[in-house]
């Protein structure tokens, strides 16, 4: 206990020295937290945007649909099942959809289109599809018409009010045909979608493809991305083995891989930052040790064993590192929370491009407990490793040389 008392007294004996060392750890923590929060925030932003645009965090599908996107692998979906998914606490919206392909024909033009039958209200709640209408109106639950991507409308040369013929293959394998009026034109963020996407209401698509009561997928949005696996497990309980419940990681592995790749390079940058931080703290510690060499020699010469002395110094460093890490985290918290609430807007060309992809043009921040714990612990460990230097130097101190000086 005496060591703790002595260490504490030592810290207060030279306040400036303590302050300098604490602040070197403090700034390291603030810097690392800031950079990491921004990086993770932007991943989160990309994921949430991509997922809310279409996929959802979790999807219920007919068995095998993810591998073979054919209506044969569609699933029966009752209102009861839909409601029970909706009533899971963490779930914010659920969108039942039919995804299929068709030939769209207008006069003598024919184009391949992706047909999506959806619940217009749920779709609007999930991704604000209604806000993307550039001409005409959005689908209402009873409309029998179609919502057409801007690029597709241009390729087919249709305007709002025109009719188009869709030809496809229905659920029972027979040919499916229908005439649909164009009710609205929508601008979709990704050119591929914009050039091929056609929305119908779910009942209309079910009629068109002769698949009453069936859908190909049920997209589920949740509030907190961290709960994805928990919610997936809950959803899985509601459905039999004839259904697949998949998370976005299985649905769009490309996105995940892209982020993992970017994160790998981020981690390399972060390691370099850690190294810089480590040397910063190291410099402070070297100075501190040099300053106290004489003090250490006196302590040893009046009978303190080097081991005891090392232990005392070790306690000092732990306290310093802890003070730095905790104060850094505490000071960062309001700043990061402020940045999270008021993200940096992207302006100019970068902003425009981001907007075109359907993402909000901002640099968002992520604030999570795990971020603080991870970064706090890493910097703390770095500080501890650096403080091995005084311990090492105590053991090879030359008392007579030091005292003579």
């Amino acid at each position, binding site marked *: 206990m005496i060591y703790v008392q002595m260490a504490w007294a030592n810290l207060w004996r030279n306040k400036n020295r303590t302050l300098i060392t604490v602040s070197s750890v403090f700034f390291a923590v603030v810097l690392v937290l800031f950079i990491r929060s921004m990086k993770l925030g932007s991943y989160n932003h990309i994921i949430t945007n991509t997922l809310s645009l279409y996929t959802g965090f979790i999807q219920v599908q007919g068995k095998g649909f993810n591998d073979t996107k054919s209506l044969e692998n569609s699933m029966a979906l009752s209102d009861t099942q839909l409601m029970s998914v909706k009533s899971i606490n963490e779930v914010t919206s659920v969108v039942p959809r039919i995804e299929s392909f068709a030939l769209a024909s207008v006069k003598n033009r024919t184009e391949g289109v992706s047909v999506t039958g959806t619940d217009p209200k749920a779709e609007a709640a999930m991704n604000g599809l209604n806000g993307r209408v550039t001409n005409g109106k959005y689908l209402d639950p009873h409309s029998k018409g179609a919502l057409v991507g801007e690029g597709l409308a241009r390729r087919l040369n249709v305007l709002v009010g025109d009719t188009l013929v869709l030809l496809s293959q229905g659920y029972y*394998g027979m040919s499916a045909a229908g005439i649909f009026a164009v009710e609205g034109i929508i601008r979709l963020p990704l050119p591929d979608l914009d050039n091929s996407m056609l929305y119908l209401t779910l009942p209309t698509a079910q009629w068109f493809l002769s698949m009453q009561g069936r859908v190909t997928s049920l997209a589920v949005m949740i509030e907190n991305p961290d709960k994805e696996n928990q919610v997936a497990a809950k959803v899985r309980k509601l459905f039999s083995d004839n259904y697949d419940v998949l998370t976005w990681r299985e649905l769009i592995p490309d996105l995940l891989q892209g982020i993992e790749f970017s994160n790998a390079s981020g981690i390399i940058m972060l390691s370099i930052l850690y190294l810089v931080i480590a040397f910063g703290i190291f410099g402070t510690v070297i100075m501190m040790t040099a300053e106290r060499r004489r003090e250490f020699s006196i302590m040893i010469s009046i009978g303190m064993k080097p081991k005891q002395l090392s232990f005392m110094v070790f306690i000092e460093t732990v306290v310093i590192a802890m003070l730095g890490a905790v104060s850094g985290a505490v000071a960062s918290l309001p700043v990061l929370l402020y940045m999270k609430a008021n993200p940096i807007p992207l302006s100019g060309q970068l902003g425009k491009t981001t907007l075109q992809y359907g993402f909000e043009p901002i640099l968002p921040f992520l604030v999570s407990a795990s971020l603080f714990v991870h970064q706090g612990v890493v910097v703390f460990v770095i500080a501890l490793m650096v403080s091995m230097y005084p311990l090492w130097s105590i053991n090879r101190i030359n008392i007579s040389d030091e005292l003579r000086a």
Partner: protein
Amino acid sequence: MHPSFLITILFCITLFAQNADEVVQKSEDLLHSRSSKSDVTMTISRPSWTRELSIRSFSLEDDYAMIYILSPARDMGTSFLKRRIELWQWSPSISRVTKIPPSIMSQPWMGSDFTNDDLVRSASVVNDYTHSFLSDTVSEDGGTAWRVELIPKPTAPVVWSKVIMWITKDDYIRRRVEFFDERGTLMSVMVLENVKKMGGRTIPTKMTMTPRDKPGHHTIMEYNDAQFDISINESFFSQQNMKQIK
């Protein structure tokens, strides 16, 4: 071996070869008439669903046919017109007549195990194949039957490499038809049952087509009513008449 014995065998083979042609011709005559009208129920079975279509069809010689879908409601009024080797489809939901291109002739018809080609029947069982007897067999209802092997002639528009028909000896009715692909693998089997008098003829009124490579798939066609040699002429088979169920 005595030469006369050899001659006898050779003679028998040629005799049989002629007979095989005749047997197929006779069984064909039983089924086909100059003209016909029939109401058929088609049941399509898949591992996860079963679907029933009711169909009315008219035919004249080998060249003309009209098929109307009577139910289910979603497909009611859809019709198919065959004129010689061409096939058209009328889709009431889009008010359009589309020609079914040759490229999808071997595709399933209305999701069944019959192909568009089965409807058009561009090949003639009698003229486009060479026929020979295999060993006799016992047909499903117990009577003896010939097994006739049909090999398509090189110029015949046929996708099969070989077809084997079981034709009963007492009434020349086909009871079973096996279809083989170009590798000689059995691909589908059509079983013909419920031989009944209908429209003044004795015909099998139930046909079941079962593809061998898809478990749980089969299509049953059952005649509910058939009339033969009705008075109908070529002008009936028009695009105009496709639009209204007759």
